[in-house]
């Protein structure tokens, strides 16, 4: 389902009937556990306003879904955690405000790994989301609910956040388009902070054109997020011809499922047929990116999650006699196991005596990784490879082994650490019928050109 199709439906019927249909469809697919709540009352009220001509814009009446780590009206903003289970936000995320200003209508909040910590949506405090193609498989994560609800065709698009692959990997697992923009492209104001140096906001859509429209709406400076960049995103009418593209061979080793590699190679053949040049390139630091990521990100999130103290908002434990008891008990009850694991690793790598060996070394290694990317971009317009080493795995398969779960991120974290734009686009299915995604990574601010390239390949 595309935005264009939905706008056409609204034109021939009404925003109310389209939103009612989306809400009914969402209830129909409740067994996927893709949504944590429906924002029915507010959605229908807004649909009526659209029909009365009081709300207008490029997305007037178009229903969509928001990952529940965005603050948005109409229902609790939970981050899929007990900590924020009943949190009623007094403000909305900038990205949500921008979409609403164009008339988009949020119909529900999507499931995620609690606080976006995870790659399968199995860390949600409210149960895992099931894959749109096989209910015995994971949705991917952490934006699993957003990807599944889009893949099921309930809404044309959903919002996600991507710190190390959380938009791209579930998009890949569910056969939809996912965009992780250049760091700082879309404001993060009003989104639950995870790792501030890699957190990004982006759309999950059923085609590239919709992703481009949404990026053009959401991009730009926001005084409330000091890291935002001046708006550079401009939709390109055509892809640049004869691009030089590097196939990252470090992402195509025998550790990557042979069917995933086969689909990527087929995509590459299509790129060649379209006149682009593909050469194998090497990114040796990619091997170390996951280790950097699992030092830097826990360090940052352990600081960011210090705010959940049970005092000002959110869950508060009962019966604590002292402040220290209140903190400890509230956080012990409000966080999931993976949250605790990451917070404690963050505390470890930041503590005196270990800081230089872990955190500082990781930030230096990050510089080396960025240098390697920069060198490649002197010769290549963009880089290509798989999104994840496999198609969606079985629910429960990796739960007992955190490192095995982390390895799912191995090909998405390099772009995150370097702040580079990276998109995930569908590249066919495995013999078992599971979607495979291809990842295209570009230099800083090349978001629009990556999307134009992907759009030019969509019909091929």
């Amino acid at each position: 389902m595309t935005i264009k199709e939905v706008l056409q439906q609204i034109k021939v019927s009404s925003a109310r009937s389209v939103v009612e249909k989306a809400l009914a469809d969402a209830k129909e697919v409740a067994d996927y556990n893709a949504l944590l709540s429906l924002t029915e009352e507010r959605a229908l009220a807004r649909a009526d306003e659209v029909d009365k001509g009081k709300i207008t814009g490029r997305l007037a009446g178009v229903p969509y879904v928001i990952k529940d780590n965005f603050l948005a009206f109409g229902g609790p903003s939970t981050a899929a955690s007990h900590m924020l289970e009943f949190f009623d936000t007094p403000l909305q995320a900038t990205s949500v405000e921008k979409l609403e200003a164009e008339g988009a209508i949020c119909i529900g909040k999507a499931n995620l790994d609690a606080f976006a910590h995870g790659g399968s949506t199995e860390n949600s405090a409210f149960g895992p989301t099931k894959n749109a193609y096989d209910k015995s498989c994971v949705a991917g994560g952490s934006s699993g609910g957003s990807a599944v609800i889009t893949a099921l065709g309930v809404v044309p698009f959903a919002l996600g956040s991507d710190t190390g692959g959380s938009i791209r990997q579930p998009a890949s697992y569910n056969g939809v388009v996912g965009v992780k923009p250049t760091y700082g492209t879309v404001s993060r104001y009003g989104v639950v902070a995870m790792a501030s140096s890699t957190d990004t906001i982006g759309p999950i859509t059923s085609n590239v054109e919709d992703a481009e429209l949404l990026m053009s709406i959401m991009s730009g400076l926001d005084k409330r997020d000091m890291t935002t960049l001046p708006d550079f995103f401009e939709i390109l009418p055509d892809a640049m011809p004869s691009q030089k593209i590097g196939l990252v061979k470090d992402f195509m080793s025998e550790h990557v499922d042979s069917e995933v590699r086969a689909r990527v190679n087929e995509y590459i053949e299509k790129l060649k047929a379209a006149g682009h040049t593909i050469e194998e390139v090497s990114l040796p630091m990619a091997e170390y990116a996951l280790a950097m990521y699992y030092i830097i990100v826990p360090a940052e999130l352990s600081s960011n999650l210090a705010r959940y103290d049970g005092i000002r908002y959110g869950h508060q434990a009962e019966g604590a006699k002292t402040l220290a008891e209140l903190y400890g008990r509230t956080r012990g009850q409000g966080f999931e196991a993976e949250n605790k694991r990451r917070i404690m690793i963050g505390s470890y790598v930041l503590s005196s005596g270990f800081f230089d060996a872990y955190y500082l070394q990781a930030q230096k290694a990050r510089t080396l990784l960025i240098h390697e990317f920069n060198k490649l971009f002197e010769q290549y317009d963009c880089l290509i490879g798989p999104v994840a080493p496999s198609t969606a795995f079985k629910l429960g398969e990796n739960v007992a082994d955190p490192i095995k779960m982390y390895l799912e991120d191995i090909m998405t974290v390099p772009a995150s650490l370097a702040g580079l734009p990276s998109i995930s686009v569908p590249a066919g299915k495995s013999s078992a019928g599971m979607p495979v995604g291809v990842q295209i990574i570009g230099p800083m601010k090349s978001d629009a050109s990556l999307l134009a390239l992907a759009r030019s390949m969509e019909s091929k």
Partner: protein
Amino acid sequence: MTAITREDALHLAQLSALELSEDEIEKLRIDIGNILGYVQQLGQLDTSGVEPTYQVTGLENVWREDEIIDYGISREQLLARAPQSTENQIKVPKVL
């Protein structure tokens, strides 16, 4: 793998302000040891003379005027979200 003792795990839990059950401490102790063991491979890299990267888009300090911006959110609205409040203030248990 890096050996994390029960005492190490308890210390990390304290630093992290997390009250954990015995069962949780034992599981986290093992997981954290394994994860630290994995990330230690960075020690192999020669990073002498390399500057760390903390921010990827080259932003430095972003200044703004020290002025009050009205976010349209009232004190009452914020207080209403605190689990306990009294006399227009947030209530906390005793500190010491």
